[in-house]
């Protein structure tokens, strides 16, 4: 079985989804059990995979036993292993939270959730451009369904934005993939990298066009300016566990940018090297600015958190735009931090909203909370972490990012990022003081929140201190990952020389 | 292929083409919808039939053994074409499409004196 480990992150949610979706109604206990167990299995598998990958060996799994570049391969390197682990950690928090009752607000929650994981994991693992498209579609369609879970106007409206934009994005992906196939004659990413390195001059323009249109697609997924508009309202409207899981979705776009451009348009690509860099860098900065404006304008906690997701996207993009080993390492650390924390915050926002009654998550005066103390403590932790104030993970992440910039980049990055941080500090302190301090008179009413919800939130937010305490081991891993990414020839060798790396 | 065979195939083919053409021509130039309906229903169907026979003949000649699978398409067309025409005529009647002035035996649904000149708008104004 061990030789199939790499495909487990796909098979487990696939099979779990099948079990869960076979019957539409009833069996909620069974479904919860299956879903949680599957997610736990995923967690275990991902940990094992991180263990395998941390040695630096690049493994691949040739589906259907068709060797690369002809068949579809799954590639396990440090980056993909890390993303898988991150996904499963996030998913566990979200799914446990959902088991407290959100899963019963519509049909098929758990099955869709597992298939959403299937899509995400597939996107992280695949080493094939078109297969990446397929997994993008899997994760998108699952996310469409999950976004609408529970219904309501806001969800429908934001769903229209989200779906239409992404549908157009899918068409663009096909165009880009088509051009790259037409110009390079292959779909395997590693093979593409090799072919780009030996590209005849008259095809460079084509590959440039393909590569850049692909960047639009990934930019749309990761919510870069000016393609981010779908994000804030969709994330704000999504049911809490779904929004939490969505925290990883923008990172799929970031991941794709790292994977594709560092591999195909690496140093070996000659004139095409670093094709995306300038765009990602400048637009990442602009995204930061836009997110800061959004953060300051938000009058609803969920929307605020959604814009915080955008802030993290901007930060990650500028990191990607710096395109150095240091910045990649900083990016990965920040990515782990921001995914888990924003995920946790979405869950927390739901709990707060429930206890505030009619006011929900709107930042207005409302009745006091029944479990205000505990909630405010968690909110405080989440807010500190997300703003990047010590002593929690965000501070380290931010410092790593700031330090990763070279002198020329600092001139732009530092003011932007610091002002954005300040904006989030201002907004979150206002939000926190409104939510927990500025309560209307009267005694709190409503019921206490279920334990499963607390577990979900604490599970995710505990990343904030843990990432600080274990900053060193984590960053050893991220640095090794960055180093692996900076040397894409190892991946191409592992995949395309027959004697090595095959499971 | 034998000359005769080829000639037959060619003839069949051209005949088919002509019918196809006539069917569409009728549809293009006749004066009212009910008359336009006749062309495609009959001529086009037969035209395709002819061409399929030509195809059958051709491949008989080339391959040496007869495959009459084209019959299947013809069968399908002969089953479906009249039904399409029937339904189309129904929609025409439903929408009370204009008919040529000299049409005789106009049924009640096309007569203004029976159902009024204009459709009475429904109170809820349709679903626009």
């Amino acid at each position, binding site marked *: 079985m061990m030789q199939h480990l790499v495909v487990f992150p796909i098979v487990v949610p696939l099979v779990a989804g099948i079990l869960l979706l076979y019957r539409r109604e009833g069996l909620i206990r069974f479904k919860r059990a299956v879903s949680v167990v599957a997610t736990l299995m995923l967690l275990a598998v991902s940990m094992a995979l991180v263990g395998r990958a941390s040695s630096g060996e690049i493994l691949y799994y040739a589906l259907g036993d068709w060797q690369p570049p002809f068949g579809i391969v799954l590639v396990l390197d440090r980056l993909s292993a890390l993303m898988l682990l991150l996904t499963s950690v996030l998913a566990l928090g979200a799914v446990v939270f959902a088991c407290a009752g959100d899963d019963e607000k519509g049909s098929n929650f758990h099955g869709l959730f597992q298939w959403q994981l299937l899509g995400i994991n597939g996107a992280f693992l695949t080493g094939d451009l078109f297969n990446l498209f397929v997994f993008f579609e899997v994760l998108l369609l699952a996310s469409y369904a999950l976004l609408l879970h529970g219904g309501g106007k806001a969800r429908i409206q934001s769903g229209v934005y989200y779906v239409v934009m992404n549908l157009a994005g899918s068409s663009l992906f096909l165009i880009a993939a088509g051009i790259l196939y037409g110009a390079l004659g292959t779909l395997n990413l590693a093979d593409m990298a090799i072919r780009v390195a030996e590209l005849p001059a008259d095809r460079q323009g084509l590959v440039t066009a393909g590569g850049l249109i692909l960047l639009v697609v990934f930019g749309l997924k990761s919510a870069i300016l000016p393609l981010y508009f779908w994000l804030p309202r969709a994330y704000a409207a999504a049911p809490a566990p779904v929004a939490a899981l969505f925290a990883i979705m923008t990172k799929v776009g970031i991941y794709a940018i790292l994977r594709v451009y560092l591999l195909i348009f690496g140093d070996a690509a000659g004139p095409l090297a670093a094709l995306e860099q300038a765009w990602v860098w400048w637009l990442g900065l602009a995204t930061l600015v836009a997110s800061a404006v959004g953060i300051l304008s938000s009058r609803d906690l969920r929307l605020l958190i959604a814009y915080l997701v955008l802030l993290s996207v901007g930060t990650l993009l500028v990191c990607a735009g710096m395109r150095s080993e240091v910045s990649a390492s900083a990016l990965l650390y920040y990515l782990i931090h921001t995914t888990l924390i924003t995920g946790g915050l979405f869950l927390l926002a739901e709990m707060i909203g429930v206890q505030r009654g009619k006011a929900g998550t709107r930042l207005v005066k409302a009745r006091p909370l029944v479990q205000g103390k505990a909630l405010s403590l968690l909110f405080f932790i989440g807010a500190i972490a997300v703003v990047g104030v010590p002593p929690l993970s965000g501070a380290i992440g931010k410092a790593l990012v700031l330090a990763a910039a070279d002198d020329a980049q600092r001139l732009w990055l530092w003011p932007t990022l610091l002002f954005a941080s300040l904006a989030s500090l201002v907004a979150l302190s206002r939000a926190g003081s409104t939510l927990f301090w500025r309560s209307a008179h009267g005694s709190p009413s409503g019921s206490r929140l279920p334990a499963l919800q607390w577990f979900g939130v604490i599970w995710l937010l505990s990343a904030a201190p843990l990432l600080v305490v274990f900053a060193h081991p984590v960053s050893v891993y991220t640095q090794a990952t960055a180093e692996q990414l900076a040397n894409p020839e190892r991946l191409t060798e592992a995949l395309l020389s027959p004697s090595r790396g095959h499971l | 292929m034998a000359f005769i065979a080829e000639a037959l195939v060619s003839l069949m083919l051209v005949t088919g083409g002509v019918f*196809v053409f006539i069917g569409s021509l009728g549809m*293009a130039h006749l004066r009212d919808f009910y008359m336009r309906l006749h062309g495609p229903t009959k001529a086009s169907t037969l035209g395709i039939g002819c061409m399929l026979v*030509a195809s059958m003949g051709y491949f008989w000649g080339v391959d040496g053994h007869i495959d009459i699978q084209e019959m299947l398409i013809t069968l*399908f067309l002969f089953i479906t074409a009249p039904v399409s025409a029937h339904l189309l005529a129904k*929609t025409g009647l439903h*929408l009370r499409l204009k008919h040529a002035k000299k049409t005789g035996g106009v049924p009640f649904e096309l007569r203004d004196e029976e159902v009024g000149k204009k459709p009475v708008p429904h109170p809820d104004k349709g679903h626009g």
Partner: protein
Amino acid sequence: MLSVALTITSTLVVIALILNLYRLVIGPDLPDRVLALDTMYVNSIALIVLLGLWLGGKTYFESALLIAMLGFISTVAVCKYILRGDIIE
């Protein structure tokens, strides 16, 4: 001879299709357009048959079969739509 016949027939079919397009575009009423579309489906079977004769193979037989079947169904659907609005009721 066959090639001449093919050319003639092709020309006729092409003209037929253009006539269909003409009717489709000018209408004037919905049933006219539906009729035009239906005829277009039928006539495209002719195109497929011609393609088969031209290329000398029967690879496209199923395509023709499907056009015959599906063209009908799509006409039915549109007619039902005009008649009843709700096509599956």
